[in-house]
């Protein structure tokens, strides 16, 4: 151990150590530099920040077929919810307000109801109660919940104009400020 101390104090030998570290470190930086296709680049679909949002097509409460890929070019707030979940209930009014205020700026809200764990009558009553005007999608088989590895109600994904997930918020309720500031960030991005 004392040898190490002597080495440390010796300016010549320690300079050699520092130069050696610089050469090895620099070489490693060069070797491990990233080929452009090696980073995720949002190309692999996965329900995580920095990845492409997994594609799905669902029927909405009003009977339309809606696909996530239809929304390319818009900022999408994808909210997975159920009518029996209190935090989902608590954050819906804020979601509706943020949708109204930003829809014309290019915001779309897709509220996917995990209908496999809910019932349609309750969903309809819920939507009426809060006067929700954004599309309510019905995940009757639970496939979207699975594809998005859902662990808690509600879970919200903020997806940018290129279809890449930029932020995931597990649980709730989200405040209007959280929603609005996150949406602002994404709307300000120029694709």
């Amino acid at each position, binding site marked *: *151990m004392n040898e190490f*101390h002597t080495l*440390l*104090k010796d*300016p010549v030998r*320690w300079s050699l*150590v*520092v130069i050696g*570290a*610089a050469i090895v*470190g*620099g070489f*490693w*930086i060069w*070797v*491990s*530099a*990233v*080929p*452009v296709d*090696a*980073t*995720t680049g949002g190309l*692999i*679909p*996965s329900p*995580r920040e*920095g*990845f492409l949002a997994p594609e799905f097509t669902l029927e909405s409460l009003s009977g339309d077929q809606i696909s996530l890929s239809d929304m390319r070019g818009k900022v999408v707030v994808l909210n997975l919810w159920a009518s029996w979940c209190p935090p989902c209930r608590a954050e819906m009014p804020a979601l509706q307000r943020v949708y109204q205020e930003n829809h014309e700026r290019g915001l779309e809200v897709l509220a996917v109801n995990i209908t496999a764990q809910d019932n349609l009558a309750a969903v309809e009553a819920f939507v009426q109660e809060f006067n929700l005007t954004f599309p309510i999608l019905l995940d009757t088989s639970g496939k979207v919940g699975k594809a998005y590895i859902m*662990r*808690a109600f509600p879970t919200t994904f903020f997806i940018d104009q290129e279809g890449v997930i930029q*932020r995931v*918020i*597990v*649980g709730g309720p*989200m*405040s*209007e*400020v*959280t929603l*609005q*500031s*996150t949406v*602002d960030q994404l709307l300000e991005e120029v694709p």
Partner: protein
Amino acid sequence: MYPILQIGPLAIQLPGLLLLAGLWIGTMLAERETARYKLDPGHISNMVFIALAAAIIGARLGYALKYLDLYLDEPLNLLALNLNTLSTTEGIAAGLISAMIYAQRKGLSLTPTLDTLTPGAAVFAIFFALAHISSGDAFGTATTVPWAIELWGATRHPTQIYELLIAVSVMLVILQIRKTKFFSGFTFTLFVALSAISRLFLEGFRGDSEIVFGSVRGAQLISFAMMIFALIALHLLSRNNAEKKDQTPA
């Protein structure tokens, strides 16, 4: 990768819990370490606590300043228990500055304080790696090595495991080296050097690196600079202390 621990109706965010546990054990260790440097353990734990509180407040204020209009409308949101509305840089700055102010006021001298904190920081790094294992963050690039793991839609380097192994090794080195006390600041500076080298090495396997200059991993450049800086500091500190020792008897 089990980010949420479900105990009956309670969903506990495991990564956060691990970081909290690391912080607690790390602080305990730092408090014990004070005996070695004849510091007041109360001062050290207060400093950690104040730094944390300031970091959280600073992080929230930093975020709110960016969206001032929204927060002026609903100022109560400043108190929201939401980790997504925190700003990292401002938080770290606020934490460091308040720790420095506290240390200054209590007359804690710099290098013994840093040496005292180091074993705690080394243990915290282990919990940091465990939190990454739990959340699946800090993941690796796609690879075909036999020990690759299936994660986020690809077979990847298990960077979280590498991180854990390296953090454990660094801690073992630090727990040994702190007994030598070659000179004041040795344990801390060596820890900085080892951490920088670890990150420089680990970052090469990461699949989520920030890229600068087209293809270089930004974190590697920062680690490289820190490594060189810490290695040079080790030499300078050893000389300074040697001179002091020479001078004292005279």
